[in-house]
């Protein structure tokens, strides 16, 4: 093994008739039902399915980490020319685990031991097999370099790293024994799209070295970046298993078709929505700056700027999408719009009058919010009737009108017949239904302005479009104005009139939705669009050109700390102004603004 140290072992994996049953309180669950597949050396198999379909169970049975409540486990697993399902646990642990098959688990945040240094965790399996610590460290440093991390990460603790860096560490860790097969279980979930794209790039490069992969995901769009073959899983079975191109171009099963359709397509042309004729603004941000005080111990504290110098108008009857990744300040700006936090600087005008805390109450009646999480945003101790009545009680609406208004608004959000819902508690409803209740609550006071913060990101893919359609509909019927906050520029395009892209607390690009998506002017917007996973078999040979926030200098959006230079993947004429001064938002084309020195 020492001789071919940096080359992965190559072999085929053949799984035949794998069955796994779980024992639960009410009988048994067939988690994996007669599944067979094979992976040739250097190939990647994608397994797509919704949560609970059994895809993780396949992974766990390959690496023998199934929980204790297994009532049935059979089938043959052959690695190279060796049957590994018959090996004793001890031999399996010593010869197969991590050495031939390793795994990258879901949830980068929790996959690292919080009290051990990164380096020690990477080299642990190697040291455990008798390798000396210094040699192990050498190969660990090589791996860190391979996954794009610097050497100083070696002696850091997990909490000092960002999510993307942790995921890179975990990938490096999975390769310490140079296994032939890596199982990747949702390796990019909970990561921002840019980071996700970078991790996918990394995986792609590893695959080119000849490592076989099993890529497990709920997001079919990601598979075209990595996989040669694709299996779609539902209720423990492979309902579709073929080469990626075949599945994408000729899906046999309805469920597969549905999955493929749910991927937002940027290439699709949708008609530009008509901008509302009135230029009257309903909400007007002027030079908004929001600082948070981050306490660093008892005596010292440090301000953290979440939003800086944002000026933005939302016109009456329009939907403005605020697009950005986590930490971009989009949610903070949304909270400013709702007058939930006071900006440290600047002013907000609502319907022409200045917002301050004193007329809070009348403002509340006119501006409402729809929240991301349908499970925590409505009080689970109240019935639907009580939830919808609360705004009426707070705003002293005549008691006799309550019942009528509640019925009306339930009809508006398609929860009919209304009497079926009035006395239910939220836990009796599905996620989509709960979100409709949340929307109804925002509508019941006849508010004209609604802030919708990721209203569909926690809802099943199937009902997402319905909810967005409902919002669209309500907007035109009731002439509402929306501030639509999202990380997903693709749905933003479908649902909004204009898009504002936020990055590090600033708006870097603003324009009509189609213009921004079709013809992005700002490098960050381009990177964001580039990062969006799309379904295309050609992706396999393509590297997504994205810029990562991890490497950015906070004072300049394009300054790459790691490379210590200003970079841009699209434009070559970079000026040094970028390092010194923040660019102003300027109109480049008609109604299309960017903030860039270039």
């Amino acid at each position, binding site marked *: 093994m020492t001789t071919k140290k940096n080359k992965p072992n190559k072999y085929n994996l053949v799984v035949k008739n794998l069955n796994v049953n779980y024992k639960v309180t009410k009988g048994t669950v067939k988690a994996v039902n007669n599944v067979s597949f094979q992976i040739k050396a250097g190939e990647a198999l994608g397994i797509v399915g919704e949560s609970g379909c059994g895809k993780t169970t396949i992974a766990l049975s390959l690496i023998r980490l199934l929980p204790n409540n297994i009532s049935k486990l059979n089938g043959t697993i052959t690695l190279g020319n060796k049957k590994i399902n018959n090996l004793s646990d001890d031999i399996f642990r010593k010869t197969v685990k991590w050495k031939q098959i390793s795994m990258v688990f879901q949830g980068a945040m929790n996959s690292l031991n919080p009290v051990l240094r990164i380096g020690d965790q990477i080299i642990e399996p190697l040291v455990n097999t008798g390798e000396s610590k210094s040699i192990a460290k050498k190969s660990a440093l090589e791996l860190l370099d391979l996954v794009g991390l610097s050497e100083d990460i070696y002696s850091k603790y997990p909490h000092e790293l960002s999510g993307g860096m942790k995921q890179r560490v975990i990938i490096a860790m999975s390769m310490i024994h140079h296994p032939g097969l890596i199982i990747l279980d949702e390796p990019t979930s909970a990561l921002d799209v840019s980071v996700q794209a970078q991790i996918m790039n990394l995986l792609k490069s590893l695959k080119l070295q000849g490592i076989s992969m099993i890529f497990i995901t709920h997001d079919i769009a990601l598979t075209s970046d990595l996989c040669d073959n694709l299996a779609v899983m539902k209720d423990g079975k492979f309902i579709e298993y073929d080469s990626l191109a075949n599945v994408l171009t000729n899906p046999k099963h309805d469920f597969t078709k549905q999955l493929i359709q749910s991927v937002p397509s940027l290439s699709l042309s949708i008609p530009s929505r008509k901008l509302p004729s009135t230029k009257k603004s309903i909400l007007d941000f002027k030079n908004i700056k929001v600082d948070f005080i981050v306490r660093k111990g008892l005596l010292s504290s440090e301000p953290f700027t979440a939003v800086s110098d944002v000026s933005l108008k939302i016109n009456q009857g329009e939907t403005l999408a605020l697009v950005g990744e986590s930490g971009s300040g989009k949610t903070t700006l949304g909270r400013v719009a709702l007058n939930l936090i006071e900006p440290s600087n600047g002013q907000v005008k609502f319907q022409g009058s200045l917002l301050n805390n004193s007329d809070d*109450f009348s403002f509340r009646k006119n501006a*409402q*919010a729809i929240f991301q999480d349908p499970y925590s945003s*409505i*009080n689970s101790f*109240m019935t639907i009737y009580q939830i919808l009545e609360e705004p009426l009680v*707070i705003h002293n609406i005549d008691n006799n009108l309550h019942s009528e208004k509640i019925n009306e608004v339930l009809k508006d959000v398609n929860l009919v017949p209304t009497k079926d819902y009035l006395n239910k508690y939220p*836990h009796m409803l599905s996620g989509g239904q709960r979100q409709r209740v949340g929307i109804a*609550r925002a509508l019941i006071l006849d508010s004209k302005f609604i*802030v919708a913060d990721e209203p569909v990101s926690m809802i099943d893919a199937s009902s997402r479009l319905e909810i967005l359609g409902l919002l669209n509909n309500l907007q035109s019927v009731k002439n509402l104005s929306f501030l639509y906050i999202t990380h997903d520029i693709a749905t933003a395009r479908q649902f909004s009139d204009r898009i504002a892209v936020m990055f590090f607390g600033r708006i870097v690009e603003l324009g009509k939705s189609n213009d921004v998506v079709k013809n992005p002017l700002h490098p960050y917007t381009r990177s964001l669009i580039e990062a969006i996973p799309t379904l295309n078999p050609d992706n396999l040979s393509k590297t997504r050109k994205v810029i990562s926030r991890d490497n950015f200098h906070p004072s300049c959006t394009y300054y790459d700390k790691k490379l210590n230079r200003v970079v841009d993947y699209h434009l070559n004429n970079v000026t040094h102004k970028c390092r010194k001064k923040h660019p102003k938002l300027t109109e480049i084309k008609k109604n299309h603004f960017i903030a860039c020195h270039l």
Partner: protein
Amino acid sequence: MSTNRENFQEFFSSTSGKLGSILLVIFILISVFVVFTYPLNFGNTIWSNPSYWSDYPKSAPPTWVSIFGTENVEHQIIDFTSPVDVIPISNQEQRLYSYTLNYDSNISPTFLSLSMYDVVYHDRPPTISVSILRPDNEEILIYRDVISSPRQGEEGPYVRYSDSPFRINLSGDKSVSSNLIEFVQDKSNSQISVNDIVGSNEKYIFSSFSSTNPQEVLHGEYQILIKFVVNNENDSISKIRFVLGGSSYGLLGTDSLGRNLSVGLLFGFPIALLIGLTTSTITTMIGTSMGIISGYTGGRTDTIIQRFADTLSNIPLLPILLFLIFIFGPQLWLVMTILVLFGWPGLTIIIRSMVLQINSSQSIEAAKSLGASKWRIMYRHIFPQLAPFIFAQLVFFTPAAILAEASLSFLGLGDPSIPTWGQILENGFRTGGVYIGYWWWILPPGLLIVITAMIFVFIALALEPVVNPKLKKM
């Protein structure tokens, strides 16, 4: 989230939930019984009043120990209210009271006593005499006395012993010994002096005077004869009580003062529940409201409450409790106040951290953007999410309060006007009950404390699965 009904089912499906609830109901029923039957000032007028307990055997084990073969004398209280015979003698009247008892125990009574209640006379004081007719037909006059004469200037009718009865301990009375001495000398053929027999008169009265075993008791029928001689037929005595002290008493025995332990222990039920529930309820209320206010309002209020709570919760409870009680005197309400004072901070710190989590949840954000006032948010949106946890805390804190009071009492800092289990136990311990072997004085109060605490632990245990999944979800 599950509904209330499911929660109830889950709670009662566990053994500990069932056991705890059943025991709690029993304890509450006993407490209700005590509250309605005991006088309010039970502690001062009865429990701590030695004369109330003078006719009880001292340090007597429960009667049921005889099951295990221990020799036993039944405790007998004989009340004479109406004479069996009235014999006029010249211008006097002799009222004769009599009682026959069959004595078959192998040990003599532990003591003998006589009490007179409510004597009223008009001319000259009446006389009383007590004699015992033994199975061997020996009649011994053991006691003879004249009711105290009128004081100077006192007008008739003369009332005696109406406030408290006149009681004479026949076992330790020297005049009784003098009355007995001739009989004893005669029977035992030895020159015993009065001083030799005083204090154990009862042994001689019931002795068989066997030469082989001087301790042997004469079995058979004994007749107690009391003559009450009056000079005026209107003179009266309401009751004469003759007590044969037993070697065991009641269900739970007596302490060294003769106090019936079962009476004292019964009184402990409502007190224990009162201490536990009141303290924990107030503590939980303060802890919860402080925690919610601190967590929700934040800022300076938060800092002040947290600093305060942090300091208080870091103070070792028992030494401070002892110190304060020692200085301010042992009063139950003070003990409870201090327990509350030092009990709320712990809860406040936990509640606050939970509120901070809830704060960032979208339901609070939603309520805020609806324009709900901060009190409404705290009451309608935050409190319900915490309620199951708070209830479990209340249950869990109850035994802590009960045990704290018991510990204080055990260290001799109990409120003397309110007898508690801890105090009874302390009396037993301080009297040396552990070393002498007064187990009936030590074990039951301790056991009751443990069982009471256990009830709440069981309930808390059964509540845990009901409360916990919600906690995890937050």
